[in-house]
């Protein structure tokens, strides 16, 4: 196989890192080479976050180049739009429809685009929006949005679902295992 590129976008604090870790560990457990990379630091303070997971026989660069992502997972609609050019033609976009105001909007300096969903659909007609927050709440914890999002792309991954479940079990803290597994399943069904 060639290199399978995943881009995960979101807002600092949403759990983009853990979602990336689950995907990377799952690839390793499936016997593939993997590189995972995100930019943190300043971005933790409610800023825009982007993370890359690259899977294949031998992966060189840790960075995904625009126009080459097989999957874009966005935890927030505006961030989906911000990074949508990373998708390759025919690439898959799954995004959480629950919006989070950027500080520029919260302080009245900018307006959140009311037509964000239309803009996404225009740029990527097959984009799939889900209410990850409600699914996470049903699973037992609003913070499990990241596992819902991983579940939502599961069928498109070059990795078996059982492997991903095993990794989720391994990385979850005791009480979180059941919630995270339910969130993963909820995402897969969405």
């Amino acid at each position: 196989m060639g290199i399978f590129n995943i881009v995960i976008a979101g807002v600092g604090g949403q759990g983009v890192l853990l979602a990336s870790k689950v995907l990377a560990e799952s690839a390793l457990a499936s016997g593939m080479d993997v590189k995972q990379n995100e930019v943190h630091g300043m971005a933790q303070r409610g800023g825009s976050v982007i993370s890359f997971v690259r899977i294949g026989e031998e992966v060189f660069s840790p960075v995904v180049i625009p126009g080459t992502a097989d999957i874009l997972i966005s935890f927030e609609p505006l961030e989906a739009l911000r990074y949508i050019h990373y998708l390759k033609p025919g690439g898959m976009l799954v995004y959480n429809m629950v919006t989070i105001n950027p500080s520029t909007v919260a302080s009245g300096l900018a307006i959140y685009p009311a037509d964000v969903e239309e803009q996404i659909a225009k740029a990527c007609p097959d984009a799939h929006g889900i209410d990850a927050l409600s699914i996470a709440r049903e699973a037992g914890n609003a913070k499990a949005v990241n596992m819902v999002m991983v579940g939502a792309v599961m069928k498109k991954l070059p990795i078996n679902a059982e492997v991903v479940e095993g990794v989720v079990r391994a990385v979850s803290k005791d009480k979180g295992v059941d919630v995270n597994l339910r969130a993963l399943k909820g995402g897969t069904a969405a």
Partner: protein
Amino acid sequence: MKKIISGNEAIALSFGDSGGVFGSGYPGTPSTETLEEVARLGVVYCEWAPNEKVALESAIGASIAGGRALATMKHVGVNVAADALLTLNHTGVNAGLILMVADDPGMHSSQNEQDSRNYAKFAKIPMLDPSNSQEAYDYVRDGFEISEQFDTPVMLRTTTRISHAKGVVEQKEKIEPKIGPWVKDVPKYVMLPNYGKIKHVEIEARLLKLQEFAENTHLNRLEMGDMSLGIITSGVAYQHVKEAYPNASILKLGLAHPLPENKIREFAGLVGRLMIVEELDAIFEEQIRAMGIRVDIGKDKIPLCGEVNADIIRAAVGDAPVESMAPITALPQRPPIFCPGCAHRGLFSILSKLKVFVSGDIGCYTLGALPPMSAMHSTICMGASISAAHGMAKVNEIAGRTDKPVAVIGDSTFFHSGITGLLSMAYNKGNALVIIMDNRTTGMTGGQENPGSGLDLLGETARQVDIAALVKVLGIDNVAELNAYNLAETEAAIKKGLETPGPYVLVDKNPCILRYRIKQPVIAVDPEKCSGCRACLKAACVALGLDAAAAGEKPKVQVDPNICNGCGVCVQLCKFDAMSATDGRQ
């Protein structure tokens, strides 16, 4: 066993596996997790130093006492440690010593993007430049061997995409630490001029030996393929080169300094076009051109600023980049901002209102420079807030201006290099207001312990410095406490500090809500009372937003209860009594 770890984690793991004895550093993105991981692994003793100079000097002492030592820092930290480094290159080491420096091309979280390879050349010492997590692991062991073999400190350089990128690593057999003798050797360790002169000659001789070593070491690798294009590269740039041209002939330099001149000459003779791919400065290119070797593609095509990627390399060769749709522009930006509940929000609301000149510093509070606060007017480097405010005040005095500058600095930055500035202000009859935001942690790098937090890197109880007492001992008579959550009190305290002649220090002791997981009941808005005036939005809090108003009506403010931390700054900004804490607090 194979595991996926970051470059920082790999360095920490290898430090424990390679006979490491002592680690010290100062937090700084992207280097921070290295020492944190050393602490978590629990194999080697490690500690946070108040700044990078102290970290390197402590590592020097550890090496002299016979223990393999590691000092970690970000690129700008080496500027602070440079005084030690540029004489450490003279003394050499007893046990191996590695200075790990993490560069930040693209400035993801830094105030500049200086290229640390300049320091290796400047100090005439070897530098290792790993291109992935496995090499980051391997080069720690190589680094200690080189350090001891050549009696030299070794720099291990990463960049953000090495430090933070995760890749597969295979661990090697563990080498047990062997602590060598602690020997008195005056001509080696006392750099009086007469001894220094001898050492300078030795440095030049050592560099020649290292150049010879560079010709044959496994660290520099030839990968011969298509001979029409030959690329010399190192670090993460190598990975981008492989991504763009997997079949090109490559001379991969694991040792970024000194360069293997013969090997480069031989390689250049074998290939058609010679290309040099390096991030930031033209360090290789300038040296290779000085060897009289023709470079066909270099910094004329590869930018001096920012990160390199496969597309930039393809374009430099003259090939078409990957086609992609145009990025959607005109989207609202999402810059980082103070966390909901952060005490900095109250302070900067008032500084913004009072329109004073704020001499700033490095930390979360630097975000006070961004709109809508726009209340920070200079930020240079660690500690500069206080010293620069002092210089401003002196010129204001000379010019007959009455405005008093305000310096804002955090606890960790104050310990790092604010204390000396404040000492100067006291000593030289200064006239600035200094606000120390003592949130009991090193916040921007993710919440590390410091001399004010009461804990050390290993999680053990530590001496906690009393900042107010320290300030008084430095010679500042006017020291008062501040509670930045109370806007009226904060305004009054700042005004008093500005009106009182001479140096004046305010200390806010509210802890970091993120580090100490503080959460208060959320704020609620009464839509009947909200006038839609937006005064509260000046708090720049992401928990606030406007509702979808009916046509012809002003949108009203709403609070997102999932995000609100209940600090109450917005409540105090509201002139219509429309906001209140849900637990009845005033």
